[in-house]
């Protein structure tokens, strides 16, 4: 009898669970591998909401406007057909979530309520209090549990992905993983593998809003086996994160969407408490600089504005790296109901109540727009992405797919708030459907892959572990991680320049060497977290190199990637039609000719190898520069 086709999904966040669900529904067997119980995935940290055009607020919102906002928000760097399809299918995706039982917040009429988010002018964000990601993940988690009860899905929780196993033609045919309790290394064959391993915020150390498991390690491991990265230089710094020594905790963009205002005292030496500073002595700099969007400018714009206030104008609160995010003018009952989850986080970790005093915030590494390169098939009939095509979300390694934050698909140079839950869910669904069709067209049998290939990879991995455990170097992996975080956030952060990036590259090389000379100080062979962490650290350093090399290669400002030496800003007080503005538009178009292209990074012995690919601009030709004034 023929063995039933099997798919492995790595990662159990929104993307991975959606993919698993769709593959299981297509009748194939799915194994999900996760570092922990899937319900604890980083998707739960997304707070504010998920975008879909429902136009229930009398604002004449449209799907087209969602497409335009996403493409422009991303500075036109995203391939346009997948974005078009994502925005078109967003309402259907939300309806599916609603059927799964997700507790979306309601209007008085019992419909899903909408809130305002950054980079847009219409209310388009569906939400569940301020814990939307948690609610969405639980909805899919429940459905996957149902598939588990039906015997179609099996979960392997507490397993870490180490590497792919390929057949003689280079087609992905399985994985090698490590059990995080017993430390056993084992191989699992599969007809296709979907990587949904999430973000890599930990490359920026504790100066990130990401969970401690968001290391990007799994993506880095397939990169070392030949998968391409794309647009890695585009890393989003969320403007409003709470300060903290162990972690900078996200304060949702919903805080601004619901009316929160960002300001600093006009006098940085002002020692009064925030609520004793009169209105006319406050600088609401976002409202002043961007009157039409005000506090809800996109994240890259807001982060740079805060950077400017603090570092160029020296106006950080009390002379420190922080500004105020103020909710105190809003109705306490209203914000409690709409933002309870984040108010709670602030109260618990900061010991102050945002209802009564403004929060202190600063930008922090938040989201990787870049990630593993994935393909898509153009649909000739509607210029979207062709539904069900096995090319969608396929990496350049045959049989390996990627979805969720670890891919580079939908956000171009900057992601709009509340588009990440959307892209994670949508891409997971698309990847699941693509893989199902890939399997239908698959001829060869898994049993044809020689056992030796799996065994060789297992022994290679065992050797790596042995070397690290026995290493008698001087370095402490946790100390090195702090250094990595400081290096990345200070030299490859909100503002970049080529000299510093060069320095960062050589520092990273040095860190990489030091990470080989560690002493794990850990003799236990059971649940050896130091070994696991050190391997992740080495991969985080490699990712740091990928990000930095890509940033060095791109000499322009686009979205989250900002090099002041190549800045091109709209002339002050000039608008479309004015000669000064039209000259600027021409210069911007010239810049696009040179730089509107996808950065591809490939692993080589001499470090990351950079090349470029054209962007599919078939939906919205870049005629209008972003302008949020």
């Amino acid at each position: 009898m023929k063995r039933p086709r099997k798919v492995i999904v790595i990662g159990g966040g929104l993307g991975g669970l959606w993919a698993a669900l769709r593959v299981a529904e297509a009748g194939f067997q799915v194994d999900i591998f996760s570092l922990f119980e899937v319900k604890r995935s980083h998707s739960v940290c997304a707070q504010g909401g998920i975008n879909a055009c429902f136009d229930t607020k009398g604002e004449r919102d449209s799907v087209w406007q969602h497409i335009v906002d996403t493409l422009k928000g991303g500075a036109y760097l995203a391939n346009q057909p997948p974005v078009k399809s994502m925005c078109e299918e967003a309402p259907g995706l939300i309806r599916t979530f609603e059927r799964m039982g997700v507790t979306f917040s309601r209007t008085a009429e019992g419909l899903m309520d909408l809130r305002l988010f950054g980079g847009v002018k219409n209310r388009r964000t569906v939400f569940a209090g301020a814990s939307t990601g948690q609610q969405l993940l639980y909805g899919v988690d429940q459905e996957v549990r149902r598939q588990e009860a039906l015997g179609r899905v099996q979960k392997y929780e507490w397993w870490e992905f180490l590497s792919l196993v390929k057949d003689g033609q280079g087609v992905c045919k399985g994985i090698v993983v490590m059990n995080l309790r017993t430390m056993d290394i084992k191989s699992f064959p599969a007809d296709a593998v979907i990587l949904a391993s999430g973000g890599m915020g930990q490359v920026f150390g504790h100066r990130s809003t990401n969970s401690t498991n968001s290391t990007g390690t799994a993506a880095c491991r397939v990169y070392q086996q030949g998968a391409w990265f794309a647009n890695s230089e585009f890393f989003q710094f969320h403007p409003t994160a709470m300060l903290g020594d162990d972690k900078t905790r996200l304060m949702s963009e919903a805080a601004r969407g619901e009316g929160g205002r960002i300001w600093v005292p006009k006098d940085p030496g002002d020692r009064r408490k925030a609520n004793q500073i009169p209105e006319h002595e406050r600088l609401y700099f976002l409202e002043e600089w961007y009157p039409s969007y005000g506090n809800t400018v996109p994240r890259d714009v807001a982060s740079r504005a805060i950077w400017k206030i603090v570092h160029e104008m020296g106006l950080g609160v009390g002379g420190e790296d922080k500004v105020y995010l103020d909710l105190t003018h809003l109705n306490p009952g209203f914000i409690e109901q709409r933002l309870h989850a984040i108010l709670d986080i602030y109260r618990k970790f900061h010991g102050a109540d945002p209802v009564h005093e403004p929060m202190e915030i600063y930008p922090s590494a938040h989201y990787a727009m870049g990630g593993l390169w994935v393909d898509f098939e153009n649909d000739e009939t509607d210029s979207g992405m062709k539904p069900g095509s096995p090319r969608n979300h396929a990496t350049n390694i045959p049989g390996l797919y990627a979805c969720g934050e670890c891919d580079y698909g939908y956000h171009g140079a900057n992601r709009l708030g509340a588009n990440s839950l959307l892209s994670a869910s949508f891409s997971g669904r698309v990847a699941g459907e693509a893989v199902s069709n890939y399997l239908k067209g698959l001829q060869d049998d898994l049993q044809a892959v020689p056992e030796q290939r799996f065994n060789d990879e297992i022994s290679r991995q065992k050797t790596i572990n042995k070397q690290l455990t026995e290493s008698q170097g001087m370095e402490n992996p946790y100390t090195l991680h702090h250094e990595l975080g400081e290096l990345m956030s200070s030299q490859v952060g909100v503002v970049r320049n080529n000299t510093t990036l060069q320095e960062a590259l050589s520092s990273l090389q040095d860190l990489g060497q030091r990470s080989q000379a560690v002493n794990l100080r850990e003799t236990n062979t059971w649940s050896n977290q130091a070994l696991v962490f050190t391997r992740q650290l080495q991969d985080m350093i490699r990712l740091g190199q990928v990000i930095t090399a890509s940033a060095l290669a791109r000499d322009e400002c686009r979205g989250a990637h900002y090099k002041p030496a190549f800045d091109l800003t709209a002339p002050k007080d000039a608008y479309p039609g004015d000669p000064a503005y039209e000259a600027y538009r021409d210069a911007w178009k010239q810049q696009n000719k040179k730089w509107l292209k996808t950065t591809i990074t490939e692993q080589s012995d001499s470090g990351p190898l950079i090349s470029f690919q054209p962007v599919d601009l078939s939906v919205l030709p870049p005629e209008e520069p972003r302008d949020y004034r």
Partner: protein
Amino acid sequence: MMDKTIDLDIRRQDTPYSPPYWQAFSIPYREGHNIVSALMAIREQPITRDGHRVDPVAWEFNCMEEVCGACSMIINGHPRQACSTLIDTLEQPIRLEPLSKFPIVRDLMVDRSRIFSDLKKVRAWIEIDGAWDIHEGAPRISPEAWKENYLYSRCMSCGCCMEACPQYGPEKAFIGPDSLAAVRLMNNHPTGSYHKQQRLHAIMADGGISDCGNAQNCVRVCPKEIPLTTAIGELGRQSTLQLLRDLFGKTQ
């Protein structure tokens, strides 16, 4: 004068099969430290208070903002999330122990997989035809009903309520307050209610709702302040009605 320190006594266990022991650690005081960040400081320099270099303490953590449920442990006798427990609110030396109701993996790490198999047992999901668009959402839900449901939907399966529950334990069949709350949530969804009967039967079986001893500990320790006992009360009434229906053969 000695610099200010944070003193911790930690219950350790090297493997699931080895005996437990205690070790004392001191780390330099820092404002704003929580239990997870203190444990991070220890893992970087795992030296006991009396100067011995030891294996770092193993524990579980992820989101660091009390939403993933990973870092549950017993802190000074109370089950809670380590990340949101600030050192400044605790009496020292701080005693850290693993949850006692689950099998120990190592040190402060436990195996909570039973929580998820119990959710399977009570069928804590909504039956949908498939994860595709049917061009219709779920029926409307009033803001009042939403407000109540939302309280339950924030359960992160952290295990604190089970730890506090005298009826829950490795030798006992009771599924625990969290699974019951999940049934309450699913039963109140407009289409989830179609399969209310199956879920009620699941919790009327052995290890179900009748095993609740009404100690009310669960609701006191829940880090998300979920009204677990209210859910159990509601389900008690629903299952009594279901029992009558079963006896007299009435359908829903």
